[in-house]
């Protein structure tokens, strides 16, 4: 994929500490993170639990206050970017409102942003098609399977056209078949919309398949232990997983963990 070489997200010397819920000891979730992400890039944050990958994503999203260091997104602080509604956050669980239909769930952020009604309806149609749920708009979340619910969550994050998608292990709770399908869907959507995507996962294959670059994080304290460029050609399909390139890349990422 060709992207503009302009820097979208820049992180310098980021540290996040917080007290442990039980013992009250200080946990160094992230120490001295330096990272640059370009506009339109697909970057995965990979690591075992406790490595701070989710914390890093949440710090960028302004859901977590950094202890020190600088995060600059489009030349602004995360708070300013969030207030301008440029983030689309996708959670590990779908986080749907069970009293709203699929359409109205997707609509909710646009209501918050004051997007006109006609435009809202148009965008709901578009995003429903993108995630392949056109016939399910009038259903309630509990009537959908887990994979479908997660797609609604993604559609909701796409519909209001944020510039940056922040995805926190969005497929971790799904079965392999659904996951593979959603990987292809996500790559398609990314190609169409050309958004910057920051994707958190503990699944190395998933990260290799999706990303331009993989940031490998190691725990205690959370730090960047490697940044791996993924040079598997695009467009990628299911067959891309079968090549030696793919396996080689997976083992390269696996070997870059430190102290695990």
């Amino acid at each position, binding site marked *: 994929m060709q992207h503009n070489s302009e820097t979208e997200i820049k992180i310098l010397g980021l540290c996040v500490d917080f007290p442990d819920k039980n013992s009250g000891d200080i946990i160094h979730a992230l120490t001295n993170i330096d990272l640059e992400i370009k506009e339109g890039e697909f970057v995965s944050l990979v690591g075992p639990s406790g490595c701070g990958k989710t914390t890093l994503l949440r710090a960028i*999203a*302004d*859901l977590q206050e950094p202890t020190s260091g600088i995060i600059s997104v489009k030349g602004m602080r995360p708070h300013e970017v*969030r*207030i*301008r*509604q440029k*983030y*689309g*956050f996708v*959670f590990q*669980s779908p*986080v749907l*409102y*069970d*009293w*709203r*239909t699929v359409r109205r769930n997707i609509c*909710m*952020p646009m*209501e*918050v*942003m004051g997007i006109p009604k006609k435009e809202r309806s148009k965008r709901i149609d578009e995003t429903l098609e993108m995630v392949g749920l056109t016939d399910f708009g*009038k*259903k*309630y979340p509990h*009537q959908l399977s887990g994979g479908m619910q997660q797609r609604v969550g993604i559609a909701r994050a796409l519909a*209001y056209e944020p510039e940056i998608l*922040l995805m926190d292990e969005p497929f971790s709770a799904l079965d392999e078949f659904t996951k593979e399908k959603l990987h292809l869907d996500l790559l398609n959507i990314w190609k169409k919309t050309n958004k910057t995507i920051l994707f958190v996962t503990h699944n190395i294959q998933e990260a290799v398949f999706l990303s331009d670059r993989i940031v490998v994080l190691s725990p205690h304290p959370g730090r960047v232990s490697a940044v791996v460029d993924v040079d598997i050609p695009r467009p990628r399909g299911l067959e891309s997983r079968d090549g030696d390139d793919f396996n080689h890349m997976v083992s390269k990422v696996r070997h870059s963990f430190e102290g695990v």
Partner: protein
Amino acid sequence: MTINRKKASERLVTLVWGLGLIGLWEIGATVVENTKRSPQNVLPHLYQIIQSVFSTAMVSNKQTALQIVLSNAGLTLYRAGIGFLIGIAVGFLLALLMQRFVPIEKIAFPYLMMIQMIPILGMAPIVLAITKDIDKSRIVIAAILTFYPVATNTLAGFKSVEKEKYELMHSIAATDRQLYTKLLIPACIPYFFTGLKISAPMAITASILVDTLQGGGGLGCMLSQSLKHAMSIYVFWQIVFLSAIVGILSYQLMALIEKIVSPYERAGA
């Protein structure tokens, strides 16, 4: 079995039980009729009670038994209703404040717990003594009995909202108002109505009970007078049935309003 047939058979079972209950009453009434001196005081036949409803005989003050019951029911239920509404408003507001401000939650929560341990209804007489007004005390007692189930249940509703849902609203920079209108209030509606379903029959019970404390009219007052044989005993039996019916209806009414108000149910599925 199809769902419809299953429902129909369930209804049939309930109907049979209802008839069984009526049969049991009638057997009891027959036994009482043959063994007691004034059976109508203990357990009259159901048809006698129904007869009294349609009877045109003047019981007191140129009113039939039914007229007495209905006119006094208006008085009682109206006050119960006002108290109920005040209780809802106070309860909801308190839950909102507790959700919003941690110190208020910390102060109020133990007291909310304590109120449900205290027999408030038994304190009705002292409320009457302080307010010195039967109408005011009906309203106050009904409001107290309404406010705490509403407050505790609504607060539980607010607490049921997962952290991720807050974060979603935060990530799209929703305003404070939008946080309430789009997330917190819709999320707490089922809990809120659980509170209302508990407190609606209680508010009515409370209001009738307060009536019995003074001679100023109302269902409870007529009930006491009828028991003391100041008027036909059937006024008592009519009030027993009326209060039971109104109690059940008040619960059903809350369930109905919930169905109408709840955004989830409205769109249907």
